[in-house]
């Protein structure tokens, strides 16, 4: 991209969750599932922005699928995250040369829990926080097993285990940032993950969809309130996700663990539900939401740029056509200044038309994306 006048669309997507919720798994699933889903559709395609991100996606995807090999769930093959990493991706509307670049950050959830305490990662956590605050979309993965299995005796500790306070702090910073850019779309998606056991549409015998949503709204009520106050224009969605679709909870017991809130921790055990085929639900809605949001952000950015360029082109044309008296005009003609002004006016008009065409194309892509119907899992929370 050597043309400096070419529109560049770059966005960030932030994930906000404490340790062990499954951020890395969600990212891996989102990207591999997203690529498959978007490849089936004709409007956009998702690709890695560089080879190293492609390798990182392959590594993450292999870990997730490896954990389900031989129909036995082996979380042992999925280590947690100890250092931050970036996924750089491109969303490309088919038939248009309009790549939309977006980055997803994965980081150790413990950094969110203790606010980057400790000299060794304080600075890095500050960088992560800045990334999260600058994100166009915030995804809040929530451990649905923790939410649903807390029971009355541990209910008081649930807020601490979910890191609601820490999430609220980051969301507040994000919301203030978004308020300053009220012209840009802003979205927060609350995503309970590992929902296979609680939702009947994924094969569970029990349907606790309403209860799950109620729990999310109840536990994150302060975060929702913060969003309403600090960024009222932000779209807030609720979308439960089956991380695997074929893994269900066998047991969940609270055990003594020093260092965890209240020195106890929920330890779940899972089994693979026959026939053991990965059938994730909710991810298609999430990738669809993200695509729409990113394309819409690009459209708004393009629209603003087109408006600015139109004004510039109009001014350049008026300046080029300005009559300044016989001798002055003769002078401008002879000295070549009139020609220079003409060329600038023509170039500005061309840049405006390019931006206008980009906006129109993005409108078309957005309209095509909008045709996909969302599943009943997706709800508005604002």
């Amino acid at each position, binding site marked *: 991209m050597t043309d400096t006048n070419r529109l560049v669309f770059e966005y960030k997507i932030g994930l906000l969750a404490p*340790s062990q919720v499954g951020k890395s798994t969600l990212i891996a699933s989102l990207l591999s599932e997203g690529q498959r889903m978007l490849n089936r559709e004709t409007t956009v395609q998702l690709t890695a922005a560089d*080879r190293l991100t492609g*390798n990182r996606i392959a590594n993450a995807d292999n870990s997730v699928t490896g954990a389900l090999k031989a129909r036995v769930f082996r979380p042992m093959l999925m280590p*947690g995250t100890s250092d931050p990493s970036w996924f750089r991706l491109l969303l490309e509307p088919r038939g248009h040369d309009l790549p939309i670049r977006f980055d997803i950050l994965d980081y150790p959830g413990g950094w969110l829990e203790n606010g980057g*305490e400790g000299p060794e990662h304080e600075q890095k956590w500050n960088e992560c926080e800045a990334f999260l605050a600058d994100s166009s979309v915030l995804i809040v993965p929530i451990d649905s097993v923790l939410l649903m299995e807390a029971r009355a005796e541990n209910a008081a500790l649930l807020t601490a285990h979910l890191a609601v306070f820490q999430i609220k702090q980051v969301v507040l910073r994000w919301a203030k940032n978004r308020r300053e850019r009220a012209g840009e779309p802003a979205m927060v998606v609350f995503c309970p993950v590992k929902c296979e056991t609680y939702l009947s549409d994924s094969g569970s015998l029990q349907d606790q969809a309403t209860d799950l949503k109620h729990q999310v709204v109840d536990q994150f009520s302060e975060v929702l309130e913060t969003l309403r106050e600090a960024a009222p224009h932000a779209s807030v969605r609720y979308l439960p996700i089956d991380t695997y679709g074929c893994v269900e909870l066998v047991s969940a017991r609270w055990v003594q*663990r020093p*260092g965890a809130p209240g020195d106890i921790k929920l330890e779940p055990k899972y089994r693979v539900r026959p026939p053991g085929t990965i059938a994730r639900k909710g991810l298609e809605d999430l990738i669809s939401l993200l695509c729409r949001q990113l394309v819409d952000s690009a459209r708004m950015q393009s629209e603003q740029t087109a408006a600015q360029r139109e004004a510039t082109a109009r001014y350049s044309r008026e300046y080029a056509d300005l009559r300044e008296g016989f001798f002055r005009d003769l002078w401008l003609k002879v000295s070549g200044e009139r020609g220079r002004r003409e060329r600038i006016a023509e170039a500005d008009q061309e840049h405006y038309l390019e931006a206008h065409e980009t906006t129109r194309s993005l409108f078309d892509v957005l309209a095509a994306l909008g045709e996909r119907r969302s599943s009943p899992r997706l709800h508005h929370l604002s």
Partner: protein
Amino acid sequence: MQVHLRTRSRAIDYAFVNSAPDSRWWDTYADWTATERPCLHAVAEDGEGHWRVLLSGIPSVRTDSGGRLIYYTLVLEGAHDTAEQDAAIVLSLASCLLADLDEDEQGRGVLSDLLDGVCPAPEVDRLLAAPSEFAMERKDLTTRLLASVASLEPLPRDAPAAGRATFDRWIAGRSAPGASAAFLTRLSALLSGKEHGQAHLLNLVSEAEDVAELFPGRLAVLVEGGMVGDPAMPLERLPEPKAPSGPPAPPGSSGAHPKVRWRTPMARTSLAALILLLLLAGVFWIFGVPF
């Protein structure tokens, strides 16, 4: 030599158990490696007088509360004029890591047993739960850790691939003939200060193209090949890094067309002024105005 050990407990996320290094220098290589899988970075750059080594992704028998694998990260830092014993310890650790990977695709082996022995689960739980307490216990852990790693015997290796291993910059799969030996030879030179540069065992790299921007100096790269890439990739010389493009040439110095200077605004303005002057002179002459 300083040694820092990072792991997690069942409940608490990854953190350094005994002491933390001054900087997170390994973040520079985050694009090329995932520290949750076996990897190694060794850095000894010109003018620094010291070396830094990280070994990560060494699996523990412990699992977290979700049943997921827990692993260790070792960060070692020392000066070039350090005792030879320190360099020998790092070489033993590196050779054990490579040998463990040969035996088990997750890298479970001698190093896992050694670190699990030094860090029993209750101690990890206690130390991570109170990060500002237990200074004596942390010191004791460092001493035990150093003693344990010092007891490791360096493993015998094949001879480095003749000729090729002398390349300044190369990449190979870790199980390619002679590659591990060449890697350890390079590592040894970096630790002793005889050479400057970097040596890495990377797990997100599959081709020479992937490391084009990793480091411009002397570089040895082993492809881990567990999830990405081929561990048997033959040793390949890496191209020399591209020289940075120089500043743009000053205008007029690149042999521009001779007519170009007559097209500049100044030349055009001067020409227009001359024509106007001649026109005025003609008008005055026709109407007999004295001048």
